[in-house]
């Protein structure tokens, strides 16, 4: 056994817990999870059946944690997990799984398959079997500070542009602000409107907020790759910033996995609960709307639909807010089939969009999204995840579809009357 395989096996043995043991013991090979997976439905290739993506981990579980399995191993009746096998599984565990979690909600015996894939990635990563693309993104986040290599000067430059364009201050390192706003590099580089939108929204709501110079990047490739050590380093920057600046709430940007990393995995990665709250920007907008702090004018009149980012809706429980917000600013909002809790993934979540060699498969899987669009024929698609946005734009381009994709936060901000500079709350 190679040293890296040994390491991977050790990590896998550590992450196997009672839920995983129960899930493996419950699977009856009914194959229903395949019907929930866009990589299977769009290719028809049974190797993409979600539970099959865990086969090496299942065998390891059996060989290490069951009496009968250990006996079989002892007398040489079981097939050991090998380097070659894990290498082969890379495509199944990363390229063809976006951690969208549809399989976990259809399994009749109740197996949380995506929970297992997330844990399996820990072993894959430790054994050196994570794809180069996500590994690179994780390394850049650790060394440079962001997966796209964005550094603080780039953020500051965007801040200046936005301040000029919107006539509103973009605070940085403001101690005692209520909200710490996080960004994703995608927003810094491709969608700076997001920052302007935040400024407008916070200004109208009369809330104090800030960016942080030591923690502006919220995405967490460490989590996507399945390396909890890296994921912890990335999360800890944000936790330290939030504590240093004494904010009440950290706002995850329009990015699904950043939300999962901060909101649900963060405290577990750090091994302690947080003294501040973590909310997705859509949740914050939902709260403002409920409290009457969000007032919009006018409506979009073209036909709009909403793409639910998996980590926000199915994996994060935020489903109603975006619909309320859509209806606030749109007269012609139509829902795609399966929208909301059962929405289909854009095909590039969970780090998949960073895997170059997975692009062809991703485009194939995008046919699912395309079919949802075709069913309602929208003029524009609204979403709340910069990664979904980029992936969908690529897919639409690939299929020659002229369908603009926009972010919900920006759309809301577009309907906020231009700033009459309000006094921040409490001053």
């Amino acid at each position: 056994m190679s040293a890296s395989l040994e390491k991977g096996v050790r990590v896998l043995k550590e992450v196997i817990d009672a839920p995983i043991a129960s899930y493996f013991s419950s699977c009856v090979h009914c194959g229903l999870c395949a019907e929930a997976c866009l990589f299977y439905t769009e290719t028809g290739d049974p190797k993409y059946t979600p539970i099959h993506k865990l086969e090496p981990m299942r065998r390891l579980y059996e060989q290490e944690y069951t009496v009968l399995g250990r006996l079989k191993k002892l007398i040489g009746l079981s097939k050991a997990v090998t380097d070659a096998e894990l290498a082969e599984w890379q495509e199944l565990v990363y390229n063809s799984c976006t951690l969208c979690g549809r399989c976990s909600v259809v399994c009749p015996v109740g197996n949380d398959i995506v929970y297992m894939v997330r844990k399996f990635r820990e072993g894959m990563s430790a054994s050196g079997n994570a794809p180069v693309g996500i590994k690179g993104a994780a390394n850049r986040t650790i060394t440079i500070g962001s997966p796209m290599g964005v550094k603080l000067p780039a953020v500051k430059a965007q801040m200046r542009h936005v301040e000029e364009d919107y006539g509103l201050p973009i605070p940085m390192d403001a101690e005692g602000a209520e909200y710490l706003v996080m960004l994703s590099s995608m927003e810094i580089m491709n969608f700076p409107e997001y920052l302007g939108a935040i400024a407008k929204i916070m200004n109208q709501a009369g809330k104090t907020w800030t960016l942080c110079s030591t923690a502006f990047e919220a995405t967490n490739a460490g989590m996507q790759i399945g390396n909890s050590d890296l994921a912890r380093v990335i999360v800890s920057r944000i936790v330290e910033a939030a504590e240093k600046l004494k904010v009440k709430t950290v706002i995850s940007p329009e990015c699904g996995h950043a939300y999962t990393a901060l909101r649900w995995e963060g405290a577990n990665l750090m091994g302690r609960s947080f003294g501040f709250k973590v909310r997705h920007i859509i949740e914050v907008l939902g709260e403002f709307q409920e409290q009457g702090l969000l007032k919009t004018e006018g409506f979009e009149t073209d036909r709009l639909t909403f793409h639910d980012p998996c980590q926000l809706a199915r994996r994060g429980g935020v489903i109603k807010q975006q619909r309320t917000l859509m209806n606030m600013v749109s007269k012609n909002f139509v829902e795609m089939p399966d929208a909301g809790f059962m929405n289909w993934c854009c095909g590039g979540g969970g780090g998949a969009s960073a895997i170059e060699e997975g692009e062809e498969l991703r485009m194939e899987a995008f046919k699912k999204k395309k079919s949802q669009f075709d069913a309602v024929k929208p003029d524009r698609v609204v979403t709340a995840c910069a990664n979904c946005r980029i992936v969908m734009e690529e897919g639409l381009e690939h299929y020659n579809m002229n369908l603009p994709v926009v972010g919900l936060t920006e759309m809301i901000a577009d309907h906020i009357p231009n700033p009459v500079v309000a006094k921040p709350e409490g001053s």
Partner: protein
Amino acid sequence: MGELQFLTWVRGTGLNLAISIFLLGVLVRLLEIYSLGRKKDLAEPRSLAGASGMNTVFRRSIPPEGMLKNSPITYIGGYVFHIGLVIIIFLFAPHIKFFQDLLGFSWPGLPSQAVDFAAVLTIVALLLILFDRISKPVKRYLSTFQDWFTWALTFLPVLTGWMAVQHLLLPYTTMLALHILTVELLLVFLPFTKLFHAFTVFGSRWYNGTVNGHKGVAV
């Protein structure tokens, strides 16, 4: 071994052996699975009505939207043979008598014609499920020896029981002995194969419901 000796063995030594292995097996398997434990979730919880382990234990018995239409044989066949098995095992008068001898108490059963009907439906459903496993690419791809073996372990007790009652093929005593023998095989293998989902299905659904319920997601 003559027919009667065979019947005596399966009713005595064989049965004791099978029940012992079954009980011990169930105990060991439950312990080796659930003693692994899990880490406490430190993320700030969000609560939502309907999002809990218990909710999922029940909710997962109903197909999610669109799935029934997508995989009718899996769902309908699955319902029919699972419900059929419960009716046959627990509501057939001779079986209730067996449980009474074993446990010391009994309950009312169904008329034998009703159980007979359930048995025929169960047999048909199991055959359909088998056909589905052979013909559907995903199921065939996932199938290992265990899948075919456990299918047989489930099918044979129903078939032999029904044939014994109908006095088909073999003399009643022989068929009855075969029936009991196949039940014993089922008991012996249940804890160590995928048939153990009969026990772990509740734990699995509960974990899934709890882990996601913590996030305010009703799965």
